[in-house]
């Protein structure tokens, strides 16, 4: 937790110190007020006091109250600055850190967890700071100051106040002890109830087809009951807090007066009046002491939650990205558009088994290399090594004859046009999605974007959209179909004009016809670019210059379609599962 506060900037710390200063003033003023109160009390008590004197004291007290208000406003202003500033900077830091992450780190945390860490967790800490900062500084100052003011007045009163504080703190402490673990349970149950509802909704057709409505309802009801019981228990526990708090505070006032009566009775006349005004003052200071301890208790209630958030954020910030930039930042090699794998093996860092074993091949300029194999054979993993989404465990990946680790990532990515399996859309327009990113050259012009969409076979549907190329793309691309998204994603790669194209199973969302025409026009446009294609359909790979057949992470065959049909059993099996013998021969 304290570590997260290291993210305060110098300016923040200066602001916090200013806050401390004004809080001290505020506490001083707040504690000054009872003095005036006792003055006023005394004046009213003593016969023959001048009204002007009372007004004077009243004015002073009001002045104190007003100045206290002013300093509270100043503190509030600075505190809001600090907390807003803090969350601004922290969010920025996390965002930039995540930007630098490779796939490995992303996978480790999972995307959804990273999102909550950047949003909710930061808000959580922001709340602690905005509420807690003032309380955290004010409460101890207030408590110590108030205690020192009343300590020498009477041992009996002090003991009473101390007793009340202890009772309150014990109550809060015991409650937290009982209830906190249950909060975690409640949180989990809420997630579960969400989960069951979600599964019922997403699988609604299956649930109905299996007549499983009752089954799902029972499952829901079980968690619902558990949740309700836990919530009831927690809230019933907390129901005790308010009455106890009130009771303690009232008892304190009552006790002070009661003890006061005895003390006054014993004192001589001169002492009586002093004791009486002391009593009135003490009851208000005593309240201040209790209040400040309550404030501290509140912070301790907020603390554990914020602590969890802080820990989660620190985990992200402390994660060292494994993929580091190389040094080559300008392209001057003789080789252009080549990709070579030399004895490449890959496994996830904490996995035992290799996902890719000893893969070697070379794609020359202008060639198309296709990768085929069953689900889980490692095709996607293999091409993810080229843009360094992962780094190889053994061996080397070379682009333009240079190990990819030696390039800066920016330069490496400028050479590559990558289209993922699942098309990613950004909120914006069709044109902004196609012209996305930075390729180290000039931004794509609208003509280039139109051309790219044309090659990707998207002209027809884009022209039909309300604002054509400026049509809005909703968050997550929900207003375009899967096939349309995929074509926009492909156009995005084309508009980039890269040396090397990487298609990670990008054509499977398209129907056969579109797939075919797209690849044909792409080939024409990009005749001198190299393409790496992962595919499921034989039809997609049939025409490639080289086909790499993968099985369980191993390369079991490299060659053209015809060669492989003859000498690669697995390739033959794949082909035959899709086409009949005659069709294969005709192709």
């Amino acid at each position, binding site marked *: 937790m304290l570590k997260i506060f290291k993210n305060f900037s110098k300016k923040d710390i200066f602001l916090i110190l200013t806050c401390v200063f004004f809080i001290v003033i505020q506490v001083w003023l707040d504690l000054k007020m009872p003095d005036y109160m006792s003055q006023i009390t005394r*004046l*009213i*008590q003593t016969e023959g006091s001048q009204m002007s004197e*009372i007004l004077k004291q009243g004015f002073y*007290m009001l002045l104190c*109250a*007003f100045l206290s208000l002013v300093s*509270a406003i100043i503190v509030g202003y600075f*505190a809001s600055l600090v907390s807003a500033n803090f969350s*601004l900077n922290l*969010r920025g830091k996390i*965002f*930039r850190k995540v*930007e630098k992450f490779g796939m490995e780190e992303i996978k480790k945390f999972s995307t959804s967890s*990273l999102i909550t860490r950047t*949003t909710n967790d930061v808000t959580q800490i922001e*709340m602690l700071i905005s509420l807690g900062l003032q309380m955290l500084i004010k409460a101890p100052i207030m408590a110590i100051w108030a205690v020192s003011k009343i300590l020498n007045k009477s041992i009996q009163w002090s003991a009473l106040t101390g007793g009340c504080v202890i009772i309150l703190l014990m109550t809060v402490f015991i409650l937290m002890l009982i209830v906190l673990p249950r*909060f975690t349970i409640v*949180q989990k149950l809420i997630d579960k109830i*969400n989960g*069951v*509802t979600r599964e019922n*909704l*997403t*699988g609604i*057709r*299956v649930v*109905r*087809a299996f007549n499983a409505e009752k089954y799902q*309802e029972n499952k*829901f*009801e079980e968690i*619902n009951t558990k949740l309700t019981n836990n*919530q*009831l228990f927690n809230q019933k526990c907390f129901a*005790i*807090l308010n*009455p106890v708090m*009130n*009771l303690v505070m009232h008892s304190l006032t*009552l006790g002070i007066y009661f003890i006061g009566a005895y003390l006054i009775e014993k004192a001589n006349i001169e002492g*009586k009046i002093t004791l009486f005004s002391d009593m009135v003052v003490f009851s208000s200071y005593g309240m201040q002491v209790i209040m400040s301890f309550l404030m501290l208790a509140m912070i301790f209630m*907020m603390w554990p939650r914020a602590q969890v958030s802080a820990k989660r954020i620190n985990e992200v910030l402390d994660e060292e990205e494994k993929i580091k930039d190389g040094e080559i930042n300008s392209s001057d090699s003789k080789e252009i558009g080549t990709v070579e794998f030399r004895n490449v093996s890959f496994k996830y860092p904490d996995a035992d088994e290799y996902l890719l074993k000893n893969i070697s091949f070379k794609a020359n300029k202008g060639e198309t290399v296709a990768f085929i194999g069953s*689900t889980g054979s490692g095709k996607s993993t293999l091409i*993810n090594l080229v843009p360094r989404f992962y780094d190889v465990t053994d061996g080397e990946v070379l682009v333009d004859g240079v190990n990819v680790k030696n390039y800066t990532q920016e330069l490496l990515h400028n050479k590559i046009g*990558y289209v993922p399996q699942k098309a990613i859309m950004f*909120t914006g327009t069709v044109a902004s999605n196609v012209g*996305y*990113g930075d390729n*180290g050259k000039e931004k794509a012009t609208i003509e280039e974007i139109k051309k790219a969409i044309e090659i990707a076979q998207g002209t027809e549907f884009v022209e039909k959209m309300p604002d054509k190329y400026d049509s809005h793309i909703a968050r997550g691309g929900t207003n375009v*179909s899967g096939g349309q998204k995929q074509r926009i994603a492909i156009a*995005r790669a084309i508009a980039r004009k890269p040396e090397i194209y990487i298609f990670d199973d990008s054509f499977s969302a398209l*129907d056969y016809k579109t797939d075919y025409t797209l690849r044909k026009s792409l080939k024409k446009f990009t005749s001198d670019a190299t393409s790496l294609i992962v595919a499921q359909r034989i039809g997609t790979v*049939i025409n490639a210059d080289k086909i790499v057949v993968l099985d369980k992470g191993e390369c079991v065959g490299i060659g053209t379609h015809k060669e492989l049909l003859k000498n690669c059993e697995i390739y033959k*099996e*794949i082909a035959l*599962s899709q*086409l*009949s013998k005659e069709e294969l021969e*005709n192709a």
Partner: protein
Amino acid sequence: MPRPRGPRGGIPEKSKDFKGSMKRLFSSLKSWHTLILISLILAMSSAILALIAPNKLSDLTDTITLGISPKINEEITKKIMSDESIKLEDKQTFMNLMENAQNMDSDELISKIDGLPNSIYNYIKPSIDMTKVKKIGIVLAIIYIVSAIFNFVQQLLMTTVSNNFAKKLRTNISQKINRLPLKYFDQHETGDVLSRVTNDVDTIAQNMNHSLATLVTSLTLFLGSILMMFITNWIMAITAIVASIIGFGFMGVILKKSQKYFTQRQIELGNLNGYIEEIYSGHNVVKAYNGDKQANKEFDELNSKLYICNKKSQFLSGLMQPIMMFVGNFGYVAVCVVGALLTMNNIISFGVIVAFMIYVRLFTNPLSQIAQAMTSLQSIAAANERVCEFLDEPEMSNQEKCSEYLEKSKVKGKIEFKNVKFGYDNNRTIIKDFSVLANPGQKIAIVGPTGAGKTTIVNLLMKFYDINDGDILIDNVSTKKLTRENIHQLFVMVLQDTWVFDGSVRDNLKFNKENVTDDQIWQVCKTVGIEHFIKTLPGGLDSKLGDSDTVSQGQKQLLTIARGMIEDAPFLILDEATSNVDTRTEELVQKAMDKLTEGKTSFIIAHRLSTIRNADKILVMKDGDIIETGSHDELIAKNGFYADLYNSQFQL
């Protein structure tokens, strides 16, 4: 303490019809009316006790005050003078003091009195009526304790009511989900329903727990303190009220202003969160396209917009507390000054001032609490409206007219579509005039481009939707006369989206079917080819399935196929059931399926044409109509749409 929920001071949503919503809420709380009533009475009693207390406290103060000033009057003086035991010398000192009293200030006088010989001092020494102090003390203690107990019991009751009510609402929503037509889910997002189950119900429960009792307590305190103040002293009462109202006017202005920033803040937070989600989930594209600079720029822009709103809303909401304090102090001073004036003129006693010091607080606190309670009521109303809106959605057609019943084991397997017409909404017909006959044991394949209506046919067959015109017959019985449950019993359905729920592999395979032995499960797993995969999982059949990445899409699809096989029924529907499996595995599954479907009438939808080459009948659909029918060979020979579709697979 409620579970911390969102940023503080979240904006209350406005309900469309506050009164109606509250009325409805109240009537749905019917079975808890007594409990609520008791709880409210307790809250009120507790508040009334809190109001009596200051009066008693003022009595206590008065009693103590009475015992402070020295009792010097003619009567005492006479007594002193006539007391034989007091020395003449001492009497003389006392008389001298009395004569000079006018010329001394009070402090001097008091110290002189303290210096008097004991014999006289004992006469004039003031003393507190300790029995009265004790009596008042005990009464006060009882009041405080009883008030605390009332308060506690009241909170217990309200908690019980609100949580049980929340439970009932959740149950109702969960059951409602299963009674709604599928059409509803086509038009509404999952997240929408989810947020009603959790967020809205939670809002209702949490706010109800506090706001109702708070409202009653605060109103009682507010009105009561006004009443008590006027009873005690009307001049002081007016002073206290005027002083507080000035402060509250000020607060109202700020409240209004900050509301705007809270709304703005919520919007900006939403925007930023959306952007973060977008960039994180598109991480590899952002990276591969060097989009990070652009992303940083856009992020910073959104982030600083949020920063500004954050700053302002936090500052303004932070003002409330200090202003409340100031209003309290202002009232205090006003009461003291006016009180002092009145005391000096002997209109009121000092105890009245003490009582008023407390009344001022009792009066100012409830005002802000009433405001808070009203905003919570607003959010209750808004949340309740959304929950009710969902619960009021029209349900599926009732099935009273379904008189026929088909026994699962006796079904022969004939299905006939007769001039079926259907559209998801009334003005757009998707299926125009669909007629087809499937004889027992036939394998019917449906192909065609996306949007042709393939899945719709399945939806109609399963009676997920009611057809607009025409009829569907199973074994010559119209499905209109069969209950949905009966129809579902007859079909095994495997879908494209792999639906796997949080639970063990066994639970997922068995699903709601009872009396399934592990042997049967393993048998099916072997057939589908996932036996090895399940054995490699850490707990075998007991290992948990969920959102985890350990199980691939393809494997999930095989699991759902296995689930369908365990279900076992006379008809089989495969809606793109193998689209996530690679073609070699698919072939294996196909073989297993063929064995299983032997003698069963099956409908298969596929976009991979290789899957359906051996179907008895292929229906080629386009725009809701069948444009070609026949076996694979017949259709290829025809050289029409199907042949075109088929050949595009191997075009070079």
